């Protein structure tokens, strides 16, 4: 399909205005009284063979995005196109054939492997479900998948509890790979692992992507891991993407105040990389009652009246997309140069912070 339009291949995954709201029901009749807007209008594309890193804090909806793509939770609005198939319109049969091509690896390798099943049954389940080959052929597939993840065929007859966290995560990856998917949703796959083991799994994921030409949605709260693995990054806050760009632009020229704060909050070993820490006030508000206007305004050091009332416009600086009133004003002032705007934002935030932390305020 892709050879028809070599110039302008559509992305493998196209997500437009995705919405996943969970109803809040109350009372005897379980009447719906509200909704948790976990994902509220998310748009992104993932070109074939690339990795999109989706970052944000807990409760921002990043995991729900991953699950909505596979319809592990039903989205309530928007479109998901996977290789030009409308995922939301597929019936259960069509969905099954699509899911063979889209697999998922979850965060917790202790919770995601059934303790009462041998590794053989865990890996084989998907193959049986998708009617792949005979017994012998399936065994061959399983051995291959295990080998790719650095495990030997001897693990097949063992149970999950016999393995360490890093090995379990390899098994979970092997389970995802055994169906030869094109697209993987990786939901915090290394967060539960120790530093030295984490590096092994990161290398494995990177290798697999290159060897098998996989496309990843990499969901994580750990910015350093995302920076290392992703080609593009999208930053989520309260159910929406506030900024997205390729990894270099996003890391070196962040625009949105939330992205600035997020990057400054990551503790670094190297003194020269340490940025002045922007400490945000308060917690992430509840997604059932998101703030009016810009959702970040109650915690934003730069918020103004307009931020509290009007939803921010999207600004697109050569593929670097951001939703922010202040950025839009800076663009008018300094022109459409992301580097200059990023600089101006940094200066404004630093000034706002040093004002608010003067000795007589707070504490």
């Amino acid at each position, binding site marked *: 399909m892709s050879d028809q339009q070599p110039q302008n291949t559509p992305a493998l995954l196209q997500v437009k205005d995705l919405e996943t709201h969970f109803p809040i029901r109350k009372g005897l009749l379980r009447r719906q009284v509200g909704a948790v807007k976990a994902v509220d209008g998310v748009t992104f594309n993932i070109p074939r063979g690339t990795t999109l890193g989706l970052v944000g*804090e807990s409760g921002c909806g990043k995991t729900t995005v991953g699950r909505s793509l596979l319809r592990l939770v039903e989205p309530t609005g928007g479109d998901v196109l996977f290789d030009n198939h409308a995922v939301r319109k597929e019936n259960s049969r069509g969905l099954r054939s699509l899911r063979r091509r889209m697999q998922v690896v979850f965060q917790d390798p202790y919770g995601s492997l059934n303790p009462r099943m041998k590794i053989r049954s865990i890996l084989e389940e998907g193959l049986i479900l998708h009617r792949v080959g005979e017994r012998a052929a399936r065994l061959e597939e399983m051995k291959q998948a295990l080998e790719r993840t650095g495990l030997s065929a001897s693990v097949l007859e063992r149970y999950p509890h016999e393995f360490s966290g*890093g090995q379990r995560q390899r098994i979970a990856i092997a389970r995802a790979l055994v169906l030869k998917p094109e697209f993987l949703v990786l939901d915090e796959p290394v967060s539960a692992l120790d*530093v030295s083991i984490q*590096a092994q799994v990161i290398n494995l994921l990177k290798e697999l992507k290159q060897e098998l030409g996989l496309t990843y949605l990499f969901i994580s709260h750990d910015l350093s891991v995302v920076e290392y693995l992703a080609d593009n990054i999208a930053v989520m806050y309260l159910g929406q993407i506030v900024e997205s760009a390729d990894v270099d632009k996003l890391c070196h020229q962040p625009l949105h105040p939330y992205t600035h704060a997020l990057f400054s909050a990551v503790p670094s070993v*190297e003194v020269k990389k340490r940025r002045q820490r922007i400490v945000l006030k308060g917690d*992430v508000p509840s997604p059932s009652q998101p703030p009016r206007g810009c959702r970040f305004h109650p915690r934003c050091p730069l918020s103004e009246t307009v931020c509290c009332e009007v939803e921010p416009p999207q600004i697109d600086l050569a593929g670097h997309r951001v939703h922010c009133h202040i950025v839009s004003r800076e663009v008018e002032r300094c022109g459409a140069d992301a580097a200059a705007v990023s600089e101006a934002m940094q200066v404004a935030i630093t000034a706002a912070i040093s004002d608010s932390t003067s000795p007589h305020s707070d504490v």
Partner: protein
Amino acid sequence: MAALLEIKDLVTAFHTSKGRLPAVDGVSLSIERGQTLGLVGESGCGKSVTAMSTLRLVASPGRIESGSILFTTEGESIDLVSASEKQLRNVRGGRIGMIFQEPMTSLNPVFTIGDQIAEVVQLHRRVTRSEARTRALEMLHLVRVADPEQRLDAYPHQLSGGMRQRVMIAIALACEPDLIIADEPTTALDVTIQAQILDLLGDLRSRLGTAVLLITHDLGVVAETCDSVAVMYAGKIVEQASAAELFRHPLHPYTIGLLQSRPDIDNRDSGPLATIPGMVPPPQDFPSGCRFHPRCSYATVPQCSSEAPLLREVIPGHFVRCHFAEEINL
């Protein structure tokens, strides 16, 4: 003057069906007044057991087998290893505060947070209920909980993770301890909330002069908050130095490996991440000789597998447990 806390040759072992498992095997540490010491290592290295031993909170089948923990305050030294339960009650929550990783499970769900802060104050000070409650309110102000008057009567489940951790800090600080032991205080929190908590801890430390023993697996957190660092591996301290020195100039192969295996935007295109092969051995399988030798790329001579290296001062103030520390130093 003696150090605030002086741990000497601490051995804590668990006696299980698998035999004697020495989780902490000869650890020595010392913390000065007002200082922050970071104790880093991966899961299973014994860092939490070291912290629990300090307050004698290790539950059976674990037991402190030898060593001493001298805690010196107001010119008076007590050895926490041999102290009576009565003396310990005084120390726990009074002179030494403790913050655990998971604030949801370490707060009692059926008491209001006001009650839980007041409880510590009433246990250690001669105060009335209402004085204790006033103190609880003060503490909530101090740890910057929003609307402290209302929060006083809130239950733990009504608070967010960051708020709960602030309450834990309030409890730990309520009796103005000389030392706080913080076991992974920010691991369960998001980065922006982690930044708030680290900021708060740093601020309280400089204002109240409290010393902190910070236990964490996150080297970044240590680099940004600690004065000195001890790296633990398989029950032993393998490297110890000031934070600035350790991160600029790591000498133990394990520390070097940990630092190199951190992913970073600047090393993304330079081939795979450096890894430490294998995994942390469980206490029943601690290797002979240097416990790190099966995973170590420097371990090329028989000496590494036969002879346990000692913790040596390789550069003034910089201690390393490795036969090759001098070579690595070059």
